[in-house]
């Protein structure tokens, strides 16, 4: 248990670490540029039947994110939304929204009373 540590300022540490990152980036860039293969070949783009929009936009597809996260992972949220909110019946939508709004109003009233009592 003889390892000692100095108590620097967190700001100094941050500056040192970012300086280190900049230095290593420059060194890596020089090494990479001097060693890398210069052979570059342009090929026709292979899209597997997808439209060209797939590669034109520099961001991942919103559809993929939705499918991967909401519909697959958060399936219970998805099912709740489909079965209780978007059933197609305005009565069910109204009862869902009004119940939540009712809870919020009750909470607001409760918090107001507590605030007044605490004063």
């Amino acid at each position, binding site marked *: 248990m003889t*390892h000692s540590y100095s108590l620097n300022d*967190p700001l100094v540490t941050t500056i040192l670490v970012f300086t280190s*990152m900049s*230095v290593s980036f420059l060194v890596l860039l020089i090494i990479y540029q001097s*060693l890398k293969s210069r052979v570059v070949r342009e090929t026709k783009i292979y899209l*597997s039947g997808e439209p060209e929009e797939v*590669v034109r936009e520099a961001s*991942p*597809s919103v559809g993929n994110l939705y499918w991967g996260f909401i519909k697959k992972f958060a399936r219970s949220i998805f099912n709740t939304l489909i079965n209780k909110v978007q059933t197609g019946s305005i009565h069910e939508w109204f009862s869902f929204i009004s119940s939540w709004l009712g809870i919020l109003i009750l909470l607001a009233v409760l918090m107001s009373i507590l605030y007044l009592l605490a004063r």
Partner: protein
Amino acid sequence: MDVFQLLFATLIFPGLVFLTALSFLTQYLVRKLSARMQRRMGPKYVGPVGILQPVYDFLKLLRAKELLKTRYSMIRAAEISLLLGLSSLVASMLLLPLNVYSVGSPYDFLIFFYMASIWPIIMIIIASLSMPGPYTSVGVSRLLSILTVSEPAFFTGLLVPVALASFDTNAPLMISATAVRVVNLWMNPLTLPIMILVTISLIVAVQSKLMLPPFNIPEAEQEIIAGYETEFSGPLLALAILLHDMDTVVSALAIVYLVLGGPAPFSHASIEGVLLVILKYFLVITVATYVKNVFGRYRIDQALVLLLKYGLMPAVIAGVLGSIYLYL
């Protein structure tokens, strides 16, 4: 810390040269162990017992292979992103107790996590999106979905022992202070369950963070070619592989120091301490490789649910228990 010391730490030890060498060695270990678990030989011909195979593969990709591009590729952006990811990992090594010239300070764990976990993954995503393709898009989407759970799990898993070990010191959330004291948490019967939960969480979180099976769905081979790295070739693929290996090394070293206590109960300067660090590092890599070889790939929804159950939940429970322990 003067300029010479900073340059030595950045470029030689524990920075660029050491981290690169350890990355190649770790890749060799993972490949050799995986091969043995699958009754294959693994790397054998380049260097003694094939130990230089990863170096040879890297140099071949970097120097001999051609870089393929399409008219939408942004090669320069991909190169710079990957190099920034590599340099952030190199800089993060300065904060580990391996560094001879300590630059630590209170709350340096937050700086470490930012450099070692946030930067590299963002840079991989930017590099991947700079070389667009249909499989790249699907891979990045899956990667982002996985990250929503794996990064919080990894962060919480590391934060709990750091907070517990450095809570009542004058150096809160400091890596060096944690590395010295975390072994006491394993000895204390009240904090032992917390450490076990943290270890379970980190085993799962590291597999997903490094995109190893069963969480390798972002680069699902055969299904979406190579996912987020499908369009990488030649020198770019060399950089991407090196970035992945360096990420493996830094993540494993973080667990060795922040959860397993590094050289404790010995010091860094002793032979026993050095051997213990090597042994713990080897243990972490072996466990990760074992899990990689035992499990098949999960679908994205299965992966996310399992990550939530066995990665994030144990870490959150450990955090709650740790808070109760600290404040009662």
